[in-house]
Every structure is written in C-alpha cells, then in structure tokens.
C-alpha cells in the first residue's frame, strides 16, 4: 500500500470504529440519554409491579394487588412539597381522569398518585393535597409507601429516579405509568401530552369493553 492509500484506509477504519462506538453507546442510535435507555428497556421488558403496601389519604392500608383488584391502574409519582413539576403532573393527571367515562371506574380502571416522600406526606397532608386536583380519594387515590425498601424497589422497577437535593426537595423524572390488569407495566407516557395519554388509556378500555 502506498502512503496515500494507507491514509485513506486508516480514515475509513477510524470512521467505522466511530460508527461502531456510537452504535453500541446509543443502543443502535436510539437513545442518547440514560433516561431514554431506561424507558426503552422498560417498555420492552414490561416488569410486573411489586406488591407494595400502600397507605392512602383516608388512612386505609392495603397492598397494591388488593387495590388494583384486576383493574388497569394509572399511576403517577409525586411528593406534596414539590413546587415545580408535581402540581403540573397532577393537574394533567386530573385532565386525563376527566376524559375517562365514569362507567369504567367501577371495575376497569383506578387512578393512583404515589408519594415518594412518606415522612412528610402522611394521610392528613395527602387528603388535603388530593382536593386541589379534585381527586375523590376513591377512584383516584393518593397514597404513600411507608416501607423504605418497598418504596425503593417500586421506584427501581418502574425506573423512577428520585434524587434528594440540599433543600428538602427532590429531583425526579415524571411520567404517566399505565399498568395492566395483571399488574404488568404497559405504557410509560409523556405527562405533558394529556390527550395522547387519554386516547391510549381509552383504547385499552374500549377494546376490553368490546371483547
């Protein structure tokens, strides 16, 4: 090989290496942040929700399975002290809730807001917070998970990342989580796209009703 060809050859080699590196690094050019990688993986694996013990705003205690009771479950994660994204998240959840026909709340779907700040979000706080979003405390409940290990396991399973900052707040990712009737994760949806989320949920419900 003469010098010129050798240089060209090396350039091609380097570019191929680069393409390979970026391909593996981004799961085939699909994900550029670890967050999107997690989401992608979750949607593929559809993990089942751990059967955590919930305590709701009316001080009732039950496991997740008892609560779900073979219904679809629509979940968000929040904490009441949050001044930024959580109020928006819950407002959007309310807007989705309003788009679901009342008949489905009998035995097809339940809404659940889970607080990851159980030390501050006791039933009293939750029952106040719930009223801001017109949650009825029954078909849409707000609850906390008291056991720290159970909570960590739940967050880990659903890919919810919660980082406490120095001011008593948390930085966390937000999404709508939609759980199947047998307790598997079905969808993670963008919480800013209310209509899209409602349509997705209704598609599942309507299909079920027809069958």
């Amino acid at each position, binding site marked *: 090989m003469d010098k010129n060809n050798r240089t060209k050859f090396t350039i091609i080699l380097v570019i191929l290496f680069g393409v390979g590196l970026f391909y593996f690094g981004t799961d085939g050019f699909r994900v550029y942040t*670890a967050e999107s990688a997690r989401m992608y993986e979750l949607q593929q694996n559809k993990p089942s929700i751990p059967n955590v013990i919930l305590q709701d705003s009316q001080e009732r205690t039950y496991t997740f399975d008892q609560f779900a009771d073979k219904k679809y479950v629509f979940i968000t994660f929040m904490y009441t002290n949050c001044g930024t994204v959580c109020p928006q998240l819950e407002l959007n959840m309310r807007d989705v809730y309003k788009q679901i026909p009342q008949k489905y709340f009998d035995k097809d779907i339940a809404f659940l807001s889970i607080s990851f700040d159980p030390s501050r979000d006791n039933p009293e706080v939750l029952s106040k917070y719930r009223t801001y979003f017109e949650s009825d405390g029954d078909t849409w409940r707000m609850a906390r998970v008291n056991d720290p290990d159970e909570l960590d396991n739940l967050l880990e399973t659903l890919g919810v990342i919660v980082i406490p900052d120095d001011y008593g707040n948390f930085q966390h990712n937000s999404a709508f989580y939609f759980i199947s009737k047998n307790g598997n994760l079905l969808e993670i949806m963008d919480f800013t796209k209310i209509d899209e989320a409602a349509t997705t949920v209704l598609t599942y419900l309507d299909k079920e009703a027809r069958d």
Partner: protein
Amino acid sequence: MKQAMYGLILFIFLILPPVATFLESIMIIHMHMQMPLLVFSGFLIARFFQIRFPQFFKNWNDNGIPGMLLFLIIWLYWMIPKAMDDALTLQFVEIFKFFSLTFLAGVPLRDSWGKLGSKAKSIVYVFFTLKFIIMGYLYIGIESQICNNYLIIEQRTLGWGSLAFAACFILYGFYWVFTDQSEFKTT
C-alpha cells in the same frame, strides 16, 4: 521521555478510585476537568510512543487526519449524556473512558495537530468553538434532566462552563488571526 513519565504519573493519579470518584461527583468537573486532563495525560504519554514507534505513526497517520478524526470521535462520544451516565454506573465503560480519552484521543491529538495543514487546523478550531457554543446553549436551555446522575442545576453550570470555553476559543481565535504568527516562529 521525561514528559511521557509525567503523563503516566498524571494518568495513574487520575484513575485512582478516590480521585476519580471525587472528580466525577461534580458534572462540570467530570466533563471539563477530568476528561481534558485524561486527554492531556495521553498528550504527554504520546512522546513515548512517538519515540518508540516512529514508523507506526509515519505509516498510519502521515498527514494527521486519521489521528485527528479519531480524537474527535472519541471526544464527541464522551459528550453523549448516556455515555457519561454509563461511565458512572458500569465499571467497564469507566475503564474504557480512561483508556479511550488517554490513548485514543490524547495520543493521536499530539501526533496529529502538528501534521495538519493550517486549513485543517482552522476547521478543527472552528468546530470546537461551535461545539462549545451549541453545548452551552443546550445545557442551559434544556428544562429536563439529561444525566440521571446529575441535577439540573449542575447541568446549567456545565452549560455556562461550555460558553466560557467558547469565549476563550473565540478570543484566542481573534488573537491568532490578527497577530503576525511568523514573529513567534522559531526556525
């Protein structure tokens, strides 16, 4: 040869677990200090390879373009948010970071920069300036958290850091264009 030794010492210092953990605990230090220092250690170590294997560099990196390309690819790869997160969560990615930035970025950078013509140099220079501006703009502007291991506030800091880099590059660029470089050439 002496500087290759210093480079190696710097490299070993940087990969010591406590040092690495500390540098990686802050986003801007991770990206704008640890990573460039790794490249710099490779830059110094390059001397050893150049003396030991002159023929290899002459054969495969004659005009400096393959080496520069390799450097750019490695550097850009580590600008991907997922790559940075992976380095913190997966051991082998962390090891690859140390290896790639030092030996696949620092070493070829040393060997290539001097060989590049002034046109290629300018392109690389402008590319880096633009990269810093775009990255700064993105990291300051994005409302969501890009790296799971770092808070948004750190992301913003990194953005401003990138803009500071861009400002330095632009200033130096002016200096480069508007001064007579031949005055400083030692022949």
